[in-house]
């Protein structure tokens, strides 16, 4: 041992001892052997991807687990014919080769949207879809952009005709006969331009219902496809599993700086307060003082969304849902009047987050360093009230997040360890 010591020097010797003997060095100074308390180990263990339960069943979509529905949905997802200009598909803003997002601050379809496109992996775990949760199911979410003037810009009558022309057999095998569309207008819908809305209003109620059902079924097929999109394990997951297994050599998978970041993540950085569980999201809505794009017209986020989802004809309680009302618990027990919903946005998953800048609901920050620096600064909100305690103000409810420049960097580097593959699996 003396010979070894003289050759390696004390620092390396300590590392060797740490690995061989499992001797932890306080604060993990050397080679990533970090000492964790039992509580910290439990927190780290709770973030492992292998602790993720299967996505809950969506009772409003009885087709969501059918492979044929998922395959039809995959084709619809990638088909630009479902757009006004024949150039926009779901995949345009949710590109399979780009983490099912587009890398842009604001979504670009027919026009430019007002928010950032969200990735789709793991979305089946969220009771509320979009940054503001204005949809209560994957299938209902999929329908929104199709009729939004700045996204696909089309209308449901047009889409029903496209389904009949190009997907009839596959559609009918799943959903039954398509209605007779021969006498219906090519373009009609309740959210279209003036002529389309007029054409929609002129249709008989039964015909409108038939077309809306075809449209809803398109969403249900797309949802079946999206249900199979998930995250694969990251280096963090391998590390966390090694911590659980008490396997020091396997813990080398994270660098010393990443470990410092992890300690901040579960500790004084308070990230885990909202970024909790295997998807690193509590799936809830928070105002964290993220600056709006336009200070004179701040985005109200969740506060403006609850009324939308309540009156949405494609919600869980609506005529196109397959659920019975008892099963629509999220909608029935939704918070609608909490002032904290003002300018609150959904906590995004942090899985693969380093692979998809820019960040926040309107791409406000270009880098993860900027994001973490925002939380360290905890500025007052322009609209509503930030949940974060500001450093100067005495906030009884929550401790301020205090991070040095080095700690901000450590946290941002740690977030890079949350990257793993995108998995396209069965619904």
């Amino acid at each position, binding site marked *: 041992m003396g010979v070894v010591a003289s050759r390696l020097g004390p620092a390396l010797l300590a590392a060797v001892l740490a690995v061989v003997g499992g001797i932890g060095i306080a604060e993990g100074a050397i080679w990533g052997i970090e000492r964790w308390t039992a509580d910290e180990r439990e927190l780290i263990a709770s973030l492992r991807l292998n602790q993720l339960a299967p996505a809950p069943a969506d009772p409003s979509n009885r087709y969501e687990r059918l492979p044929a529905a998922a395959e039809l949905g995959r084709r619809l997802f990638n088909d630009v014919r479902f757009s006004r200009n024949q150039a926009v598909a779901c995949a345009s803003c949710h590109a399979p080769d780009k983490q099912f997002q587009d890398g842009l601050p604001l979504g670009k379809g027919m026009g430019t949207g007002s928010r950032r496109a969200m990735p789709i992996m793991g979305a089946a775990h969220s009771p509320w879809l979009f940054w503001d949760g204005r949809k209560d199911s994957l299938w209902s979410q999929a329908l929104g952009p199709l009729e939004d003037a700045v996204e696909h810009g089309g209308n449901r009558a047009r889409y029903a005709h496209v389904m009949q022309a190009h997907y009839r057999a596959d559609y009918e095998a799943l959903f039954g006969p398509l209605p007779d569309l021969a006498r219906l207008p090519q373009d009609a819908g309740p959210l279209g331009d003036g002529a389309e809305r007029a054409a929609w209003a002129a249709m008989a109620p039964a015909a409108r219902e038939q077309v809306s059902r075809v449209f809803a079924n398109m969403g249900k097929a797309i949802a079946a496809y999206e249900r199979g999109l998930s995250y694969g394990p990251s280096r963090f997951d391998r590390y966390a599993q090694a911590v659980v297994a008490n396997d020091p050599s396997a813990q080398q998978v994270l660098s010393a700086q990443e470990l410092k970041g992890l300690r901040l993540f579960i500790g004084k950085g308070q990230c885990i*307060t909202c970024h909790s569980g295997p998807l690193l999201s509590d799936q809830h809505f928070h105002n964290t003082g993220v600056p709006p794009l336009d200070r004179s017209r701040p985005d109200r986020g969740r506060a403006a969304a609850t009324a939308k989802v309540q009156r949405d004809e494609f919600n869980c309680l609506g005529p196109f849902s397959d659920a019975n009302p008892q099963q629509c618990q999220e909608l029935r027990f939704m918070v609608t009047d909490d002032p904290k919903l003002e300018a609150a946005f959904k906590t995004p998953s942090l899985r693969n987050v380093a692979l998809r800048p820019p960040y926040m609901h309107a791409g406000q920050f270009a880098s993860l360093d900027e994001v973490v620096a925002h939380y360290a600064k905890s500025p007052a909100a322009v609209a509503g009230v930030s949940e974060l305690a500001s450093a100067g103000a005495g906030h009884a409810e*929550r401790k301020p997040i205090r991070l040095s420049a080095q700690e901000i960097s450590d946290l941002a580097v740690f977030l890079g360890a949350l990257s793993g593959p995108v998995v396209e699996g069965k619904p």
Partner: protein
Amino acid sequence: MPYRPLSLMLAGSSLALFAGCSTPPPDLDLSLQHPSANGRFIVALQPPPKPPAINQLHAWQIRLTTAEGATVQGARFTVDGGMPQHGHGLPTRPQVTQQLPDGSYLLEGMKFSMGGWWEIKLSIHAAEGVDKVSFNTVVAQPKAGL
């Protein structure tokens, strides 16, 4: 009604975890049966038999009696609560949806979005009077795999 040792069911153990150093006060009253603020009622909360997973919707039951022990019929409740240490309310708006045949009330739409200390506050309106009551519960982090 033989209530289970309720504080143990959700708390799991005294080792329940809290992120960001937000350990609940050590003297936190975790009893789920006590008098309402002005002593008008005795209120007991019963959580589901199996602790719900984080973010899982579930139902509790409320047993409401007068101070003398008589079951209170036809009471109306409003439900509030949240996490005092995180500055946010309940992620859902739970409601008492019905009175069950045994006289207890069904509190539906409960959900905890994270582990830690949660408050559940009830406002009670009944023919016998109006009162409020507040309970604490500590939701454990998932322990699977350890």
